[in-house]
């Protein structure tokens, strides 16, 4: 039994050591908050223009992590272990209804200056930070000058504009695009006539690549795998910034404008500091700098006074004022997403 005992002792000792190593080591430090966003070049620019300057000015350190995700937020709130203090949220996540109200803190607007942010973009539990446009992008080799698409109607016209199509594998944006293709006026798109919208898609059902992740689209378009696709104006712009010769272009007409919000997951242990960071990110001068670097639109209208005309033309908000864009109705979608996901999969599986 001697050997067994010594083995057992070693085993117990090893177990104790492993347990000790697994204990979280928390170094005492000045206040640190965690921001979670989309990652990539957009977040790198956020770090440069927002987080680093914020840390310098306030002494509050901002750790930024990628892959913000609502189900992770829900899990954090449910377990009471909230690791993220500020999150970049799509509008559907902060729709001011009880279910998601349970996930985010109500913001204290006596402490957050929002001058310049339009009223309709200030919600109980989130405030707008950036605007995007989901647009029709195309390959310029497939459609040379004079033969280029100008609307979603052309996207659904395989005869005049042959070639593979691409679209996000989700019902949202798809239904809006097909209704606008049929000639439905932007103001009449919502509430969406789902059956009518899907009928339009029937016509090109087998010629569409349903991509899953936004970064897929620009690459598939540039390589010629797709002739036309939905993409985000900032992603196509980003690709052209990196590779001037990339054969891609997009149109603003009938683009779908979406808004990102800043929100604080419920139970954050650094609510005060988080609100300070949110205010910091609403500042027009900083938003203008960020917009110049990324072509992501500012939420603060005062930022436009600080931008030259050439930059303004690259931003969604400018084209919105020219009445070219449809504003995505995230409140309508957050009510219908569950049912429409089922409808969508049924439609995809049907012959």
């Amino acid at each position, binding site marked *: *039994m001697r050997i*067994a*005992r010594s083995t*057992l002792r070693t*085993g*117990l000792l090893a*177990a104790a050591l492993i347990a000790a190593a697994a204990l979280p080591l928390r170094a005492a430090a000045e206040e640190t908050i965690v921001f979670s966003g989309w990652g990539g070049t957009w977040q790198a620019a956020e770090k440069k223009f927002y987080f680093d300057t914020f840390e310098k000015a306030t002494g509050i350190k901002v750790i930024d992590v990628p892959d913000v*995700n*609502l*189900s992770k937020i*829900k899990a954090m709130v449910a377990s009471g272990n909230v690791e993220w203090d500020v999150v970049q949220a799509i509008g559907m996540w902060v729709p001011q209804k009880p279910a998601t109200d349970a996930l985010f803190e109500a913001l204290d607007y006596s402490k957050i200056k929002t001058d310049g942010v339009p009223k309709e973009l200030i919600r109980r539990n989130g405030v707008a930070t950036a605007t995007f446009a989901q647009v029709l992008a195309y390959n310029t080799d497939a459609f040379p000058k004079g033969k280029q698409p100008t609307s979603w109607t052309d996207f659904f016209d395989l005869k005049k504009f042959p070639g*593979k199509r691409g679209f996000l*594998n*989700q019902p949202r944006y798809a239904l809006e695009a097909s209704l606008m293709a049929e000639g439905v006026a932007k103001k009449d798109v919502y509430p969406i006539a789902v059956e009518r919208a899907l009928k339009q898609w029937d016509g090109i*059902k*087998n010629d*569409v*690549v*349903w991509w*899953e*992740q936004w970064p*897929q689209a620009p*690459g*598939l378009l540039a*390589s*010629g*795998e797709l002739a036309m696709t939905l993409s985000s104006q900032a992603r196509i712009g980003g690709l052209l910034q990196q590779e001037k010769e990339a054969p891609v272009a997009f149109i603003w007409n009938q683009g779908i404008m979406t808004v990102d919000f800043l929100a604080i997951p419920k139970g954050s242990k650094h609510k005060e500091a988080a609100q300070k960071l949110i205010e910091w990110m609403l500042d027009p001068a900083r938003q203008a700098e960020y917009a110049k670097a990324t072509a992501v639109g500012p939420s603060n209208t005062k930022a436009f006074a600080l931008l030259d005309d050439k930059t303004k033309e690259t931003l969604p908000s400018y084209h919105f004022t020219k009445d070219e864009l449809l504003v995505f109705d995230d409140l309508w979608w957050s009510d219908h*997403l*569950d049912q429409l*996901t*089922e409808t969508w*999969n*049924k439609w*995809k*599986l049907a012959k």
Partner: protein
Amino acid sequence: MILVRKPVPTPDQVRGRLFRDHALAVREQSFDRWLARFGPAALWLPGVVFMTAFFLVPVGWIVAQSVLDPDFTLKFYARLAGAPEYALVLWISLKIGLISSLATMLAGYPVAYLLVIARPGVRALMLAFVLLPFWTNILVRCYAWMLVLQTKGLVNTALIDWLGVIASPLPLLFNLTGVIIGMVHYLLPIAILTLYAGLKTIDLRLLRAAQGLGANPLRAFLAVFLPLSLPTLRATTMLVFVLSLGFYVTPALLGGRTEITVAMLVSTYFSDVLNWGFGSALAVLLLAVTLVGLTIYFALERSRAEVIAP
């Protein structure tokens, strides 16, 4: 030589030493008894705790979530049963799983066999090539396959422009073919390593004996090695098939309109729609089907064992 006599211990010293030895012996005995009683528990307890914490509790939580909202309800299962599309998605998942695991075994078995009969140096090199993709992130692999398989990708360019074998590009991506290629690539290292661990226990002298008795190498393989490898083959196939049912990244990225798996829906309902109740019901459906499959497999294995045993 000078003899040094040890000093004779006094009676007290003798008594003391005896007492100490006795005390040690008693302690040792009691420890042995303790060990005999709790030692086995100390060995199986960590395993049980681990399984409970990382398997039973999460699975129990998923099952509970699929029937609570917040009171007991079967509405999520009613929704599953209410639309024939969910049965169709289950069938698609099983089909994709079956095809990819069969393809994986067909490609993996010869490699595992070569690993067994290879010289040690060659074997190490082969294992390195098997392990390299094993350590690569699944997303990276999917994006790499997109570059290889797309219309103007490596494969089609080679076939059309360099070799001139075909005129128009093969549809290899965003369909069933793409999903199977991506999944087989992921499953192969797992299959090869599992097969290799089983196959290397087969005594290769039996093959030599068969050849010594006049069998050619093929006959020796078919008559001796293959039958001996069947249990490993069956177990690995089952393992690979169970794994293949859980794929959602690969079919989502490499599949087309109709390559929808249950695991993909679980992911959608958990992260996009945030309907965890329905997502859990879908997960329970997948788990139940997997368990039924495993039960049938083990029942067959047992009946086989009874047939073989005298």
